[in-house]
């Protein structure tokens, strides 16, 4: 069952990645991106990497929130002509069906062949508390987290504090 959920999430993740890259609407693209991150967080959680899943959710939720606000605040309403939009829809109309068919085929093959994920190596499941991991072995990442917060703060200042221009 775990394998099935993980494979399903992988398919969902790739599907949302493709839609994020291809959608013309920034807002829809950002939603796809958030969904893709959420799928990855589920995969990480199911594979036993609980801390990684939490980090993925927290970092990406933060990041995606900035993207959401940016997209909503800084873009003008979509003024592209309807013919152009219809052409775009026509071009990619088959994509969701192809992805669903491909995903279903992969899942069917995996279920049929009885594929199951291997257990993580011994070192990967070594007992360690969050404190030990965060303070004792991930020092470089502490600086990284501080810098990420600073980058986020400057992003808000640059994009919002001086008022909307467009």
């Amino acid at each position, binding site marked *: 069952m775990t394998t099935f959920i993980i494979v399903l999430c*992988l398919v969902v*993740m790739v599907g949302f*990645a493709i839609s*994020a*890259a291809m959608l013309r609407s*920034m807002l829809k*693209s*950002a939603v796809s*991106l958030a969904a*893709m*991150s959420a799928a*990855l967080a589920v*995969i*990480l959680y199911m*594979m036993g*990497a609980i801390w*990684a899943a939490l980090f*993925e959710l927290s*970092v*990406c939720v933060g*990041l995606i929130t*900035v*993207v959401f606000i*940016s*997209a909503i605040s*800084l*873009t*003008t309403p979509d003024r592209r002509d309807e013919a152009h939009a219809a052409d775009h829809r026509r071009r990619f109309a088959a994509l969701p069906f192809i992805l669903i068919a491909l995903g279903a085929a992969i899942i069917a093959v995996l279920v049929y062949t009885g594929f199951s*994920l*291997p257990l*993580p*190596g*011994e*070192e*990967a499941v*070594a007992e360690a508390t969050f404190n030990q991991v965060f303070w*004792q*072995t*991930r*020092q*470089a*990442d*502490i*600086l*990284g*987290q501080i*810098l*990420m917060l*600073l*980058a*986020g703060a*400057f*992003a808000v*200042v*640059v*994009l919002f504090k*001086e008022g*909307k*221009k*467009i």
Partner: protein
Amino acid sequence: MSAGMEFVLLTFMGLPLLMVLLNNLLKKEIAQKICLSLGIIAGIVQMAAAVFVFASLKAAGQTEADFSQFWDLGVGASRFSVDFFSLLVLFCIGMVITAGFLTAGKTLGDKKFNFTNLAMILLLGMNGIALVTDLFSLYVFLEITGVASFVMISLNKEGDGIEGAFKYLVMSAIATVFILGGLAFLFMQSGSLQYGDVAAALSDWQYAEQPALLIAGFVLVLVGFSIKSGVMPFHGWLPDAYQSAPAAVSVILGGIVTKMAGVYALLRLTADIFVNVPVFNQILMLLAIVSIVLGAVAAITQTDFKRILAYSSISQIGYILLGASCGSAVGLIGAMLHFFNHATFKTTLFVNSAAVEIATGTTEIEKLGGLQEKMPVTGVSSILAFLSTAGIPPLAGFWSKLLIIIAAWQTGNVFIAGLALFASIFTAAYFLRLQRCVFFGPAVEGLEDTKEVTGGVCLSSLALSAITVGFGLLFPALLLFLQGQGLI
């Protein structure tokens, strides 16, 4: 390690952070006046620090040095480390950041303060990428670089800038999800993400319980970093991001950011981690040659100065990856040197596109012409940079491309080596077209009064051109040195 050396190592992460603090603690009026100087100082000090650490390591007979940013945590903790390649890269970062700040003076108006803050965070992100020895830490610093770049591209808050930035961020986020997924698979097998531990765990990956899982890990990581590098067919975001960014941001983005976020990571993976995974190198070689050829062909059809440079970057990044994918010392050294050369000549060209934009108000080549007499420094430095890009001797680009093509030839991939050589003709073609349209011929109506852009823009063009020529002339001595060390 001496105390002096330890102090200098700390400057790589400490100095940009100090500059951010200074910029924000000073009174706004003072900060507006000196913020660009802070960035220039940070860039120059970084170059000097890289040279100092290189000389110290050489004198001590060491090839690398580990250090902790906050406190020493003993064995197993993620830490920073420098070796000769990371020092070369740190030098490149300092050089491009300096050029970016010198260009910013004439292009950013009242955005200089915010530009300085973001560029320093970007500098920290890139330095982190160069210094970490752990794949998860690499991911964290990639994210920092991505977020800072996104905001810098949209600094002017204009429609095109926002759209370009958004494309960059979406593709960057997709790439990081692929990378993180790949790292999870690799971690399941190795139990660690330290470069050395992962390499050891992969030494006999064919005999692992589930090699398919490791292959999935390789593919996810390769695709993720390929998107970050902008290699074909993952290049969709790159031309828009380069074109829509403010001029000074394009200099930094095109000069070093893409290379750090994708290419450097791929070089590290091939050199340090996936040493025993030939399939990784084979896929990388395929991507590289596709980028070299199609990037050059696409550049020929472009009509915007910055878009030509963007497609040229895709092609040149292909050369770097081709060298790395050969799996030999010659190829890897060629790749590293082309990394440096590309940072130099592409930064020169982006600085020149900024000069043209400042002087004429456009980068569309069809609206330009006859600028050689009006802007002699920009014109001549453009010629030098594009000759180096095309691999014309004795300029720096010739030597690194030569090493890469020899390495490809030595692996038995004669056809690929031939294609890489042949693609140089395309490089010459699109740059000749660019040079002819922008600089040669009679002055276009309305541009008769155009003048050379002086100050920082001119200075960085001259300095970078001097490096391109000087490095090319000194290259034979470097080759002899490498031969003496038994590296080639």
